[in-house]
């Protein structure tokens, strides 16, 4: 059993050991081991020239990573907190995402940007944001979100091997949750990076979610089971590209879908999921696709976040509405 932090750390160890071109780059990731200790001990084992403390300049963390990738390196950047990625927005959206297309595939930028994200840990402002939709909206990026230690480990290793830029989200609230990490790339436990996963099978309704909300959905499904409703929980894992066939197959069976994410609902991933499911499953649906998400407010002060973030009760309230249609 490993915590998600340990699983990420061991993934970084593995990729650093496998490939000399891999560099880890970020603020306070060296001696300190990162503010969440994800890079703990890596500098000692791989050296300061491979585990590089960046300056406090997010745009340049991504910008220099692009230059390093052009030179043949495979940088893995850490953005310290979700809310700190915005200074790097231009480099990610206008540079990193576009150079492959701009050069008609001649330039490949295997850059991974790790972002500890989401709320639920009582943090101060700018430290609990869910900004995945901005990047999923941008062509040229892969956007993935892990939800447990096993996926954290293997998805990160796959992301580093990918020749595309990958925005790699890690749910802070699950950092210290333990899970068994598969010892090898066992196909039963290690899915391809762009595939969704059925986290819990069920026949009455599909909960579509990712990241820190997966555990909330699993808990909601457990409660619903005691009330006689079998909910299927799908962990999207890849937000872009979406594994639409897996989602559609589930909703065609269950005929009802509720999307759950921490991000505000307006133009969040749920909007896209609702549209796609409606387009593809219209005659199978017994209810409209419902969304449970953060309210459309700036992320509230920490003492209010329990009222802002979807919890079991809010998920079950939406489930009840969908089942009653």
């Amino acid at each position: 059993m490993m915590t998600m932090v340990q699983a990420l750390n061991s993934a970084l160890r593995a990729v650093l050991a496998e490939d000399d071109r891999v560099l880890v780059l970020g603020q306070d990731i060296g001696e300190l081991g990162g503010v969440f200790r994800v890079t703990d001990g890596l500098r000692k084992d791989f050296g300061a020239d491979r585990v590089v403390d960046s300056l406090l300049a997010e745009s340049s963390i991504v910008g220099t990573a692009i230059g390093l990738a052009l030179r043949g390196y495979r940088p893995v950047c850490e953005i310290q907190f979700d809310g700190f990625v915005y200074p790097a927005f231009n480099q990610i959206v206008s540079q990193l995402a576009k150079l492959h297309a701009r050069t008609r595939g001649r330039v490949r930028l295997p850059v991974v940007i790790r972002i500890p994200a989401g709320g639920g840990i009582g943090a101060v402002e700018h430290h609990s944001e869910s900004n995945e939709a901005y990047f999923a909206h941008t062509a040229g990026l892969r956007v993935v979100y892990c939800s447990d230690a096993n996926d954290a480990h293997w998805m990160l290793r796959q992301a580093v091997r990918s020749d595309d830029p990958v925005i790699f989200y890690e749910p802070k609230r699950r950092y210290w949750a333990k899970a068994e990490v598969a010892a090898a790339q066992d196909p039963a436990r290690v899915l391809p990076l762009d595939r969704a996963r059925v986290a819990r099978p069920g026949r009455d309704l599909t909960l579509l979610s990712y990241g820190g909300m997966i555990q909330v959905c699993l808990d909601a499904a457990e409660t619903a089971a005691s009330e006689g409703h079998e909910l299927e929980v799908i962990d999207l894992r890849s937000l872009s590209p979406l594994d639409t066939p897996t989602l559609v197959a589930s909703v065609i069976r269950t005929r009802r879908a509720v999307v759950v994410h921490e991000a505000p609902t307006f133009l969040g991933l749920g909007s896209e999921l609702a549209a796609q499911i409606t387009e593809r499953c219209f005659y199978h649906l017994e209810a409209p696709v419902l969304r449970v998400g953060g309210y459309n407010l700036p992320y509230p002060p920490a003492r209010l976040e329990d009222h802002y973030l979807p919890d079991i009760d809010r998920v079950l309230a939406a489930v009840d509405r969908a089942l009653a249609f």
Partner: protein
Amino acid sequence: MPLKYPTHKAEVDVEPIQLLSPDGELVSREDVPIDVTAELCRDFYRRMTLARRLDTQALNLQRQGELGLWLQCWGQEAAQVGSVTAIRPEDWVFPSYRDHAAALCRGITPAELLSQWRGCAASGWDPYRYRFGVYTLVLAAQLPHATGFAMGVLRDGADEIVLTYFGDGASSEGDASESFNWAATAQAPVLFFCQNNQWAISTPSAAQTRTALHQRAAGFGLTSYLVDGNDVLAVHAVTRLAAAGIRAGNGPALVEARTYRMGGHSTSDDPRRYRTAGELEQWRALDPIDRLRLLLDRRDWADGAFYDALAREADDLAADVRRTCLRLQPPALAELFDEVLAGPSAPLAEEREEHLAYLGGFVTEDATA
């Protein structure tokens, strides 16, 4: 007693390094060595003349509706030719978007140069082939790329440097300051080359910065130089000096070349709205090509046959630019779906099929015949 702030040293007025006076006289400086030969001067003259001819022809093509936009390098030929020829072929260049003279020196073809502006491509050339990055239209965004690339060079222990171009306007961007700072901190082998062409669209460089850029560089720990950007010999010598220092392990450097954007910012701009005709005339007297011609003629380093041959070569280039421009075609939209990502994407593949099916749904005259 009122708190007294420390006073800053007033800006020192430094004269740009000049090796060729505006009236075509050579100026010798021991601290900036250069072996001025007839051959070198003829080569620079030829490169600058051809670049200007391409630039003028592209302007014409835009005015005739064949290019969507063009950003002239008119007036900046010496800054570009002098600098890019002072580094080695293996050294990478990260350009801005007006660096056509430098691009031509690197072997980039007119078709590759024009396709972006004709709306046929997002960038026309393979950066790996020419060691010349794609044009970057978001100001200063190329500077961290150059810095990161140079960090890689340093890690590889390679005997290379990285040259990156930017302008006086771009020097205000955060990415510029971040890159100066990061390059200096990492001692990355980058040469930041500012073509201070006096205007950022309509904002004069005096309004852009309180401290001259070459002086600001010192605060970042960069070695810096101020050079007459319309003096191709001085630009060449100073760039070579700066590059040698970087290659010797002295850390990154910055060159500020004082030059002038003779045309508008772009073909959509009208500089008459914000600058005087008198200013343009002042700078016209400092034209980099005319200045070198004065030297060539004064020393008798070029004869009529040279100028005639060059005129024919320029005519041929202009004809070639026009011909290749008119032949440029965009790829089919369907091709772009496969170029977004290096790896597979099922949604993109599906969207591509939908697009093709939509196109296939049109019944053509031929098909019904």
